[in-house]
């Protein structure tokens, strides 16, 4: 059995699971854009809302955050970079590099916003089937001329669906190398090359097999469209989405 990543869809009957995917997509877009100019307090309020949905969806908050720990390193890096580069009231300096009050607060806010976007995406992908994402992408792209919406949508859905398989293969390659003392290699570039080359090869072979399997089941762009199943609560979600966006922008 493959391990589920935090981004893998998990079945459930929570509010986020039953809401129409187009509505979720739209709310994510407006909330993410509103967050660009938001201050710390409204962001914190939004974080509390996300925690509420985590609880409602019955996800283990600590296990989920633990599984995205590598992303946290990126946030720490963003924080440090911002703290060291922004001009303002100097708190202390060493070797000509100054850490400023504005840098620290700005770095924290930017990292926090990245974190919120990440958690929003995580909640979205773990409560939305990739096939629904595909349908929504297709629906949003349909009015745009010269865009092959069905093909784009299938590519997105396959990429999402194939993530667990690719991660499983990466794990197998890594284990096979560890079994031959591959972890003694300290050069990170060599380590990455050793992992990436066989992984790419495996991924392309898997993609080949997938193409054959799809072809053998008569795949074509012209297929039965997926159906949307609105729960009737979308209007409340949209209203809540607008209120959250306004709060983020105005507060």
């Amino acid at each position, binding site marked *: 059995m493959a391990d*589920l990543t935090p981004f*893998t869809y*998990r079945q459930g009957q929570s509010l986020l699971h039953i809401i129409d995917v187009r509505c979720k997509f739209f709310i994510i877009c407006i909330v993410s854009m509103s967050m660009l100019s938001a201050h710390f307090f409204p962001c914190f309020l939004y974080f509390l809302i996300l925690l509420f949905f985590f609880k409602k969806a019955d996800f283990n908050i600590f296990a989920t955050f633990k599984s995205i720990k590598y992303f946290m390193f990126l946030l720490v890096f963003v924080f440090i970079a911002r703290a060291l580069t922004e001009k303002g009231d100097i708190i202390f300096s060493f070797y000509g590099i100054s850490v400023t009050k504005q840098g620290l607060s700005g770095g924290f806010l930017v990292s926090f916003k990245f974190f919120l976007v990440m958690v929003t995406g995580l909640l979205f992908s773990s409560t939305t089937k*990739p096939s629904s994402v595909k349908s929504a992408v297709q629906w949003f792209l349909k009015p745009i001329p010269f865009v092959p919406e069905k093909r784009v949508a299938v590519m997105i859905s396959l990429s999402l669906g194939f993530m667990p398989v690719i991660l*499983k293969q990466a794990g197998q390659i890594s284990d096979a190398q560890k079994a031959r003392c591959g972890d003694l290699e300290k050069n990170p570039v060599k380590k990455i090359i050793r992992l990436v080359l066989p992984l790419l090869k495996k991924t392309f072979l*898997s993609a080949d097999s997938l193409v054959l*399997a799809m072809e053998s*089941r*008569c795949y074509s762009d012209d297929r039965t469209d997926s159906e949307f199943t609105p729960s009737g609560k979308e209007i409340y979600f949209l209203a809540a989405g607008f209120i959250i966006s306004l709060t983020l922008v105005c507060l």
Partner: protein
Amino acid sequence: MPEKIIDINSIRHIFSDGYIGIKDISLSIHKGEFIILAGKNGSGKSTLLRHLNGLLLPDSGTILVNGHDVSKHLVQTRKTIGMVFQDADTQIVGDTVFDEVAFGLENLKIKRDKINEKVTQVLEDLNLSHLRQRNPSTLSGGEKRKLAIAGILVMDPQVIAFDEPFSNLDYPGTLQVLSTIIDLNQSGHTIIIATHDVEPIICEATRIIIMENGQIKKDGTPDTLIMHLESFGVREPCSSKFGLGLVPWPT
């Protein structure tokens, strides 16, 4: 004699690197037959199977399915001959068991109501109903293989071709798949299994075709060919080696 369903006339396939995959194969397959395509790795079994489904087309010769040339009636051929691949992981497209089974019917542009009805029926027939909302990547090996079979079965094929159906399966998984295959044959489907391990299915087979170097070397009933298997790199079943003849596996 039952009605002829597949008629292969002197086909030859040469890969782009010049390797001859199959040479001058002629073969007829009748409705309801249970055929084992046996041979060691590289003998041309999978290449021949892929020709039956139109995934590969012969460089010379013809393949007729129900009297129609495969190269001119690809969709019809793929509806008639379903194919279950060796690696179930890489052929799964849907993000739930239900969606995976529905994939083939969506490709055929069947109406949504009909799709829901047929998928529900097939899941019930294969005892997969309780898994309908599960993510396929979380299923066991045997369940994944049964899911792959369900994805084919829903398209109402007359012939089901399996490429190494028991590879990477534990004993319970093998029995699960074996029992499903036997049921399919008893319900009137023609079964073709390409394998180098004939032990689980040899008792059920009505015919064995032994391949080597892209050619058919022997074609006959299991009891007449069982002693010839090892000379073509295929292990003779234990029961036969111990003088017990052909003993069926428990299903």
